[in-house]
C-alpha cells in the first residue's frame, strides 16, 4: 500500500466534503505529498484509483501547480520571494547569499539532502519584505544575518515556525499617538 491506513481514511473524509469526487484531487495530492514527500507516477495512479478518475487527469493537475514535486525535495524547502516589493527590499541579494551559502542554484537540492532552494513569486507578505518561507512558514524582513541564523537553527534540527511579528512596526501615527497618550 502506498499510503498509511490513516491517510486512506483521511482521503475518504476529504472526498465526502465535495459534491463530486474530482474536486478532491488537490487535497488528496496534498495528503500524498505529506506522506511520501513528493508525487511519483505510482502515486498519481493511486490517486486516480482513490478518486475514480484516469491517471492522466491527475497528471494534468500535478504538472500545473508549482507546489507539487515530482522528485523528492530536500528536508526543507527554502522559498525566496523575488517579486517587486521584495526585490525592492533586496531579495536578489538574499537569494544570492543563500546560493553561495548552500552551494546550489534555485531549483536544486543540497547534496546532503537537507535544503532545496527555490526562487518564487509573490508570497503575499509584501509589507514585511524581503520574505523567505521555509516549508511555507514565513520569515520576514530578512537580512543576510537573519538568513545565517535561520540556516544554523535548521541544521541543528529545529523545525521552521512562522515568525511572530511586531504589529507596532505598522501602527499609523495617530494610533501610536493615542497609545502614548493613554499610557501617560
Amino acid at each position: 500500500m502506498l499510503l498509511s491506513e490513516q491517510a486512506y481514511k483521511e482521503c475518504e473524509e476529504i472526498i465526502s466534503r465535495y459534491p463530486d469526487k474530482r474536486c478532491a484531487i488537490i487535497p488528496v495530492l496534498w495528503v500524498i505529498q505529506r506522506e511520501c514527500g513528493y508525487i511519483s507516477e505510482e502515486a498519481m495512479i493511486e490517486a486516480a484509483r482513490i478518486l475514480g478518475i484516469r491517471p492522466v487527469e491527475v497528471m494534468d493537475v500535478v504538472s500545473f501547480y508549482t507546489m507539487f514535486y515530482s522528485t523528492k525535495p530536500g528536508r526543507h524547502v527554502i522559498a525566496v520571494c523575488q517579486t517587486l516589493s521584495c526585490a525592492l527590499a533586496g531579495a536578489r541579494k538574499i537569494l544570492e547569499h543563500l546560493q553561495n551559502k548552500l552551494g546550489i542554484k534555485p531549483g536544486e537540492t543540497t547534496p546532503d539532502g537537507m535544503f532545496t532552494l527555490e526562487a518564487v513569486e509573490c508570497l503575499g507578505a509584501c509589507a514585511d519584505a524581503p520574505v523567505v518561507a521555509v516549508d511555507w512558514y514565513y520569515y520576514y524582513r530578512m537580512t543576510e544575518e537573519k538568513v545565517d541564523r535561520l540556516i544554523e537553527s535548521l541544521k541543528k534540527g529545529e523545525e521552521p515556525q512562522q515568525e511572530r511579528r511586531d504589529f507596532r512596526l505598522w501602527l499609523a501615527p495617530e494610533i501610536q499617538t493615542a497609545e502614548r497618550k493613554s499610557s501617560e
Partner: protein
Amino acid sequence: MGPRIYKYIAHPNQHRLETYLEHGGYQALRKALSMPREELVAWVNEANIRGRGGAGFPLGRKWGTIPKGATTIYLACNADESEPGTCKDREILENDPHQLIEAMAIYAYAVGIRQAYIYIRGEFRLAAERLEAAIREAREHGFLGRNILGREDFSLDIWVHRGAGAYICGEETALIESLGGKRGQPRLRPPYYPTVMGLLNRPTPVNNVETIVNLVHLVNLGVEAYKSVGTSTSPGTKLYPVSGHVKRPGVYEAPFSVTLRQLIYDYAGGIRNGNRLKAVIPGGASVRWLTEKDLDVVMDFDSVRAAGSDLGSAGIMVMDETVCAVDAALNLVHFFAHESCGKCTPCREGTRWMEQILWRIQHGEGRPGDIELLEDVASNIGGKSFCLLGDSSVVPVQSSIALFRDEYERHIAEKRCPVAQEFPLSSPEPPH
C-alpha cells in the same frame, strides 16, 4: 465611526474562539439571523459594499445575478491573495479567522447557501491551519454545521481548500476550475459566469476575503453608521498594504476617502532616506503607475480610475529614485510570464517575448527598435487574451514606457542600465 476590520488583528489570541467571543464575536451572526433574509440583502445593496479583490464590483449587484429560485448554490471565498504588493487578506486569515467564518455564515444565510469553500493559496500554510482549527471550534459551538444557533432552516459547512501554487487561480473562473479538480485555466463568459454556472455548473459566487468580512461590520453597525466613513461611491474602510521605499511599510486600514499622499507620507512615514518619489503603483501589479503629480488622488475605486489607474487590490508599491523603470517593468513581466496559465497564445507566448526583450534592454543588449517592438507585442496581448492576466501583463510595459521612455532610450543607446540601482530587480540570467 465606521468599520474597523483590523481592530483586533494584533491581539495574540484573536484567532481563538474564546478571545473572539470576548471581543464581541458572533454577535453579528446572531443579529443577522434575527433579520429576514430580504432585509439583509437590502442592507448590502444600500451599503454598496464594493468588492475588494481587485474589481470593486458591488456585492449586492453580484448577488442580484444569482438565478432566482436556485437551490444549490456554493460560496467560494477567494483567499488566493497573490497580486504583487497585496498582503492584507493573510492577516485576517492568520490572525482573525473567526471574522471570516462569521461573515461567511452571514453571507450564506442571506443568499441561501449550505456549502462553502475557502480557496486559500497553498503557500498560506499557517493561515490554513488556523482556519481549520477555527472552523472546528465554530462547529463545536454551533456557529457552523446543522441548525446553526438553533435555526432549523439554516445549516452550513465551510471547508478549507488549499491551492498548490498558481496566481491565476485567483481569477474567479480559474478558481472554480481548480476547485473542481482541474488545471486553473479560466472559462469563457458567457456562459460561465460564476454566479450562474460555477462549480459543477451550479451558481457559485466568488468573493474576496476582505469583501466578505465587511458583512460582519455592516450587520453590527447598520447601514448609516457603516456608510459614515469613506466616499459616496465607496463607503466604509479599506485595507491598504504599503510596501517598497517607505519608512514604515505596513497594512493600514483607512476610510476610502484617504489620499495616496496621506497613505505614503502620514501612515507609512514617507520615502526612506529622504529620497525622491519616482513612481508608485497604487493597486497591485496590474494597474498603471502614478507619479508625484497624482499623489492627491482619493483612494477609492472611482477616483483612482478617473486619475487613469485603478485601485485594484490596493497593493501600493512605492519606488524611489534608485529604481530603474525598465528593471521594475521586467520584474513584473517576469511574474506574469511565470504565472500565465498557457491556455491562450497571446499571453503564453507574448509575455515570454516581452520578458526577453525587456531583459535584453536592461542587461545591455537593447537594440534600436526594441521599444517599438515591445509596444507592438504588448498591443497584441492587451485586449486580445482570454482573461485579464494577459491584459495585466502589458500594463507595466505600457505604463513605464509612457512615463520613462527616455530611460528606455538611454538603456539602448548606452548599452547598459544607466540608473544607480541599490538592488537589481531581475536575474542576471536571461529568461528561456
